[in-house]
């Protein structure tokens, strides 16, 4: 028992090392003065950050990514919440099919999704626009948002809504003053998570972005040119942004299951 305990601890530690070591390496080399990622390391420098963020196209890519992430996360969260509420509140004949469809997007291979989006958005005249990327990322994020909102709504006493009607709140008023306040932690959490999904997403964005590049698309284009430690610097910023969003989302999920 004691041995098994130690082994499982070692296993968890090894797992974390395995997952985070590549990222950590990238962070370390982003502060290394040598041009190529080799050991022994050179001296500490913030040079790569300075050069990377002096390039206007980097700023533009970040701006694009932030706009896309914000819009896609807002839309995903709204859609996800509405879908989850429909599931919570109503029973109807093809509910299983409805849920399966709503949860389908993450199971589609990203290349296929990218191609399909390109073809479809092209017809609408939206390929190569930020709106196109926002639509694509909304489709990808909504199922996650729905899953999070569903978990929260399952914790809600079904009598809570009826209690609000009983106290004189119309169904719409009940939505605004009971269901949404109850779901707020899930809504924020879903927003953070879908923003992180969008901010990181490369394949579909690569298909539909055209000239309006997001950060991951820009990173690939720089990489295709040459090996440049600026990538490590940009990568570190992207990683920190995403991990912050994910941790925020997790904290909200944990806190709400405590109450």
């Amino acid at each position: 028992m004691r041995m098994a305990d130690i082994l499982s601890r070692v296993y968890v530690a090894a797992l974390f090392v395995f997952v985070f070591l590549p990222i950590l390496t990238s962070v370390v080399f982003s502060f290394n003065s040598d041009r190529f990622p080799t050991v022994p390391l050179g001296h500490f420098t913030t040079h790569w950050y300075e050069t990377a963020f002096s390039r206007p196209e980097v700023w533009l890519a970040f701006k694009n990514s932030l706009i896309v992430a914000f819009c896609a996360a807002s839309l995903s969260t709204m859609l996800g919440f509405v879908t989850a509420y429909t599931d919570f509140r109503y029973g109807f004949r093809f509910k299983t099919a409805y849920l399966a469809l709503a949860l389908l997007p993450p199971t589609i291979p990203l290349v296929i999704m990218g191609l399909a989006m390109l073809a479809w958005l092209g017809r609408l005249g939206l390929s190569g626009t930020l709106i196109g990327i926002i639509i694509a990322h909304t489709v990808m994020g909504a199922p996650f948002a729905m899953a999070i909102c569903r978990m929260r709504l399952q914790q809600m006493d079904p009598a809570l809504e009826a209690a609000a009607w009983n106290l004189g709140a119309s169904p719409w008023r009940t939505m605004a003053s009971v269901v949404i306040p109850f779901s707020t932690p899930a809504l924020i959490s879903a927003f953070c998570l879908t923003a992180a999904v969008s901010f990181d997403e490369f394949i579909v964005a690569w298909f539909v972005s055209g000239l309006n590049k997001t950060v991951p698309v820009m990173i690939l284009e720089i990489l295709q040119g040459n090996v440049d430690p600026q990538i490590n610097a940009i990568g570190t910023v992207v990683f920190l942004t995403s991990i912050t969003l994910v941790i925020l989302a997790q904290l909200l999920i944990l806190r709400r299951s405590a109450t």
Partner: protein
Amino acid sequence: MTIEDTLVTFEGVHKRYDDFVAVKALDLEIKRGEFVAIMGPSGCGKTTTLRMLAGLETPSGGKITIGGKCMNDVPAHERDTPLVWQSLALFPFLNVIENVEFGLKMRGVPDFERQPRALIWLERLGLKGFEKRRIDQLSGGQRQRVALARSLVTEPEMLLLDEPLSALDAHLVIRMQGVLTKLQKELGITFVYVTHSQSEAFAMADRVVIMGQGEISQIGAPRDIFRAPKNRFVAEFVGRNNIFAGMGQSGGDIVVAADRISVSREATEGASVQAAFLSEEFVGTAIICYFEGPDGEDLKALVTEEELEALSPEPGEQFWLSWAPEAVHELEGA
């Protein structure tokens, strides 16, 4: 009963779900200021009846009136029929006073007026100083009182209660029963109280409605129902009754209350049966002795501690259970 005295009427109300009839042809009148308990086993339609009164279910047929006005098509949020829920259904994201103010807020009572009115009710229910507490920081009894305050703050003519005490510890149930009866008398409003518990219904209600399988089996004062159950279902549900099949003058079933049975080792004159002793149970000052009758029926007799000692029964021993003719109540039907 005059028209003005009647607050609620059910006229031939029934409620059907797809393949199941929850309530069939219910006729009931509830007076102003009355404490009515609707009692029955689970699935008897008592909660559906209450929910129809609150507008949370629409009757499939029949007519419900409140204060003379037909309520069938009035949605829940336009009625003044606050309900105390079995789960309490307090809003977990609001604190105590915000919960209590909720109904006032939804009715458009201005901010400055809401708080004092909520405070009056919190104080009245002994929750002064708890205004800013979160719901999960309260005990079961305190939550119960918040739920009451939340329902009463709009000063309704009628309060609906759906098994509100079922989640409480036994000693708290007795205390809350006291709180509820006192409140009802002081406010003079109608309480409609749904429960499966005989002791709660009989302890508090002026009138008890016994329901079984979607129908009213009997309506009456607790004492009448206890002493004169109308049929076998009521007699069995009320408990502490002995039912003897086919012993009535016209061959019907008769009921003798457990406290009117005397137990002896020798055969006695008059009506009696021989039964085997099973076990005993202390209920406060008296003891219930359980017997098995000649046809396997469950029989019970209420005895004092001295009587039990004198008898000192052993399980399986035969005794004679007898009763006076005036203790007999004949049941209707089979």
